[in-house]
């Protein structure tokens, strides 16, 4: 129980605003927004403080026993801060964006309340110290995302929300089964760098392999690995900020983060590679990458195409985890951050296009470069980053993934990365061509104001910021403040055991 107050504060910084917002009147826009932003500010400040303290060597822990041998445990380590930092910074931009996007929408109080709860769940996932706590927040996340998907209250979003619920409840149940099996075998342990399963020396390898597959299915539903990805494209019926949140901040990332925890801190990477479960993961990742990219090619709807792109890109993280050796791990973990930043930019742009010109289909995007230059520029940066053009962030992750694959002599994986880059360009470059080289379909909206942006400034500012971030994360990859440096520290810990 060291410094447990900070952990509680970290969770409350988004939980309390959510509670207050639920009881606020719908018309108190200013109060609601300022409460939200206050929560975001506190959270970012706290995460920054935790970063600094962790570097100085302070520990943060909060634990109490719920039942015999089952412990509720929150703790802060390098891995949790990687994800917490990403979520809280992107939460700031998403909140700003959502305020702009939903200006005329109904039920804003409900939306922002659950929005904050969603972030609470995600932060809870970050600081969970063992599988049981992780599971609690994992299910909490499922429940609070459901109303967000339903926000539009039309037939499509109803379908989407129900499908999401089916998938994730199934995943949750399987996840629980895996946890119970593991618990009956070795008891509950906290996450530890290098894993704890090898040390306990219980169970034969086949049993542990089966448990891994069960856990993978459980967490993989949220990470949208291939046979379990069906809910994600449907969920595109929700408003743009929700998609952004699903893809970059909370849900999909939570799944990927869960797999990171399981492989590195439950099984331990060396033990996992001895058991051969890394090959299972690699197979799943490769299938997902290729399938997602191929499906994305045939989507006419911009957001659907982005959704399939997410399916494929998130599996880069899994691919990196499945490559034994520091380089592959760096590639996978750094992609957790880079993919988040780039994908959120793409969704912000898609939302800005649809809210300003009602553009949802790709063939309506002709000439947007002239009518919405800033959003188009951001879209271009993020899309090129996804393809992996230097010096953007995506290149850095692809570089390490490639090196990691060759470190193990896996030419096949390098081939898959190359093929996926080809497919990525095949579905992003035609969009860029339409944006920049075709004549505009729509007249530019001329505003009466003397100085005006191409759309609502609250839509434009966040997407510019995240686009800039995806450029800076690449350009300054070697500086001390970059995600890459932090990941390198982390990987050093995982492999030094």
């Amino acid at each position, binding site marked *: 129980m060291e410094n447990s107050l900070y952990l509680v504060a970290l969770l409350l910084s988004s939980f309390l605003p959510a509670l207050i917002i639920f009881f606020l009147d719908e018309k108190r826009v200013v109060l609601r927004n300022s409460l939200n932003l206050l929560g975001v500010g506190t959270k970012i400040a706290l995460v920054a403080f935790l970063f600094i303290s962790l570097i100085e060597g302070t520990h943060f822990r909060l634990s109490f026993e719920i039942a015999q041998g089952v412990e509720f445990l929150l703790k802060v380590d390098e891995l949790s801060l990687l994800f917490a930092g990403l979520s809280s910074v992107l939460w700031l931009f998403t909140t700003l964006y959502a305020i702009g996007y939903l200006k005329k929408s109904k039920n804003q109080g409900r939306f922002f309340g659950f929005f904050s709860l969603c972030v609470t769940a995600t932060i809870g996932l970050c600081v969970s110290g063992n599988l049981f706590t992780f599971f609690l927040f994992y299910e909490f996340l499922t429940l609070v995302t459901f109303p967000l998907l339903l926000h539009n209250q039309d037939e499509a979003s109803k379908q989407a929300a129900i499908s999401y619920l089916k998938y994730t409840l199934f995943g949750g149940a399987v996840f629980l089964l895996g946890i119970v099996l593991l618990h009956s075998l070795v008891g509950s342990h906290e996450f530890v760098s290098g894993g704890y399963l090898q040390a306990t020396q219980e169970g034969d390898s086949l049993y542990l392999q089966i448990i891994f597959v069960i856990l993978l299915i459980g967490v993989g539903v949220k990470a949208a690995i291939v046979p379990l990805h069906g809910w994600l494209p449907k969920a595109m019926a929700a408003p743009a900020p929700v998609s952004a949140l699903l893809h970059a901040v909370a849900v999909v990332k939570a799944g990927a983060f869960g797999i990171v925890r399981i492989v590195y801190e439950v099984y331990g990477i060396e033990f996992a590679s001895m058991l051969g479960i890394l090959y299972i993961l690699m197979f799943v990742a490769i299938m997902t990458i290729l399938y997602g990219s191929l499906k994305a090619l045939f989507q006419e709807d911009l957001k659907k195409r982005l959704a399939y792109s997410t399916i494929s890109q998130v599996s880069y993280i899994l691919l990196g985890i499945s490559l034994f050796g520091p380089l592959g791990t760096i590639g996978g973990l750094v992609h957790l951050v880079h993919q988040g930043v780039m994908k959120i930019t793409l969704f912000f742009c898609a939302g800005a296009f649809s809210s300003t010109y009602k553009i949802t289909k790709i063939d309506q995007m002709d000439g947007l470069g002239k009518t919405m230059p800033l959003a188009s520029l951001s879209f271009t940066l993020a899309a090129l980053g996804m393809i992996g053009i230097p*010096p953007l962030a995506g290149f850095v992750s*692809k570089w390490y993934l490639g090196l990691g694959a060759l470190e193990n002599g896996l030419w096949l994986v390098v081939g898959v990365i190359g093929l996926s*880059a080809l497919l990525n360009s095949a579905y992003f470059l035609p969009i860029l061509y339409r944006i920049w080289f075709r004549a505009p379909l729509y007249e530019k909206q001329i505003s009466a104001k003397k100085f005006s942006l191409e759309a609502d400034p609250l839509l434009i500012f966040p997407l510019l910021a995240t686009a800039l971030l995806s450029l800076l994360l690449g*350009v300054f990859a070697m500086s001390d403040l970059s995600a890459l440096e932090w990941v390198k520290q982390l990987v050093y810990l995982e492999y030094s055991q």
Partner: protein
Amino acid sequence: MIATLLLLCGAMLFSLFVPIGSLFNIDWFLFGISFHVDLIAKVFLLFTSFVWLMSALYAVHTISKRERSFWFWFFITFLGNFGLCFVSDVLGFYLFFSLMSFGAFGLIIHEKTKEAKEAAFVYIKYVIVGEVLLFIAIVSLVSQCGGTQFEQITCSDSLATLILVLLAFGIKIGVFFLHSWLPLAHASAPASASAVLSGVMLKAGVLGWIRFMPFGVASSEIAGYSLIVLGVLAIYGGLYGLTQNKLKSLLAYSSISQMGYVVVLFGLVLLDTQKSELLLYAILSFSAHHALNKSALFLLSSEINKYGLDLRKVLLFAFFALSLIGLPFTSGAIAKEMLKSGVDSSVLLALLSLGAVVTALLMLKFLSLSREIQKVSSPLSPLLPIFGLFLGSLALPWILESAGGFRWMQVLPFFMALGIYIFLKKQKIEIPLMPQGDMLALFYLPRQELKKSRNIQKQRWDFSRALEAVFRSIEAALSQEKYVFLFLLGYLLFLSVLRFFLY
């Protein structure tokens, strides 16, 4: 526009005065980018910035539509091309190379005609495949050698990596069977862009080969012989060019056959590491020579297209064309002498001379085509950049400090070509116009014409026509990128299977 011109002038001054051996480092950018001006870099810098500057001056006079977008892409492409000349690590090279390749898309599509769009789409597909191959090659080089500097990556002895490098840059050079994008792109870009595309951007691929191959360190027989065969096959490009009726496509096909020489040289380097230094000088001087003359010809072709052939242009054209063929006292003669000094097989020498004959034929065809264009009085100012290139080309033999001499072998191809050409004219044999055809049709069709003219017409199954149809379909397949890529994939697969069985 002004920014681009200023940058170009600055780059020119930099190239002229930067001393060999200077180092620059940008540590904060990506994984750190370092620049090192060695002899190779200096040569490339000089001709690259000179040709870009002259093309830009020409563009000032000729680009009137969508100026801003043209100059933007011009700027981007130049930045990439300039940077890759003297960067000294693989990632920096990759960065600048992609900048250049993607920027050129904007230049090719500039006219926005149907042809330009199709050409640009074909081009960008090739570019992306090249980029991916290059990425894999770089990752494997760095993974094998553990460093990103050019000096460090020569350790690799893996054939697969070498083939990846050869293919990745081979697309840019326009090696035979990867060349289909080249005539399309070069013929439909604006003249000032095709001049740099054909003159200097092809050479970026050459530089890529120099830098990424284990140049003069390791040898590889398979790759070496493949390159020599492909280089000789490039003469086909020149022959096929004879069937074209647009000035710029003639020149583009000529580029393919000219780059064939360079490909052969690289093949020799891979066979025999002893001679690599000699061959390097040959490659460098040939690249510089071809850059100056070919870009000048492209600029000139656009002038001729607009205003017809007058005396000034005939003189300029004669000079550049004769340099390209390699007549005595021109830069071409020097470059070809250096080239031949590195080759000791007489068969290869004869084939290279055949290449010169084809070039000469192409130039004669160019002349006859341009004589058909109606003359209009032309302004002088667009000719000035071409004149600048003329001075550069004139000065090249002195810069190379090589004693030029008169050899019969230098003149012979030209007169042979002249003879063939006059013969064809006398016999009234028209070379058919072929958008897509094949090399063998060139040999069969004239014979059919001969038969017709002598009234020997027998009704029987025509073997030649059937063969012609077969080759036509092969060419049609070759010019569609998907078949090329499939073939490429098959080739890679074949190699890996081969490797599997060998070891």
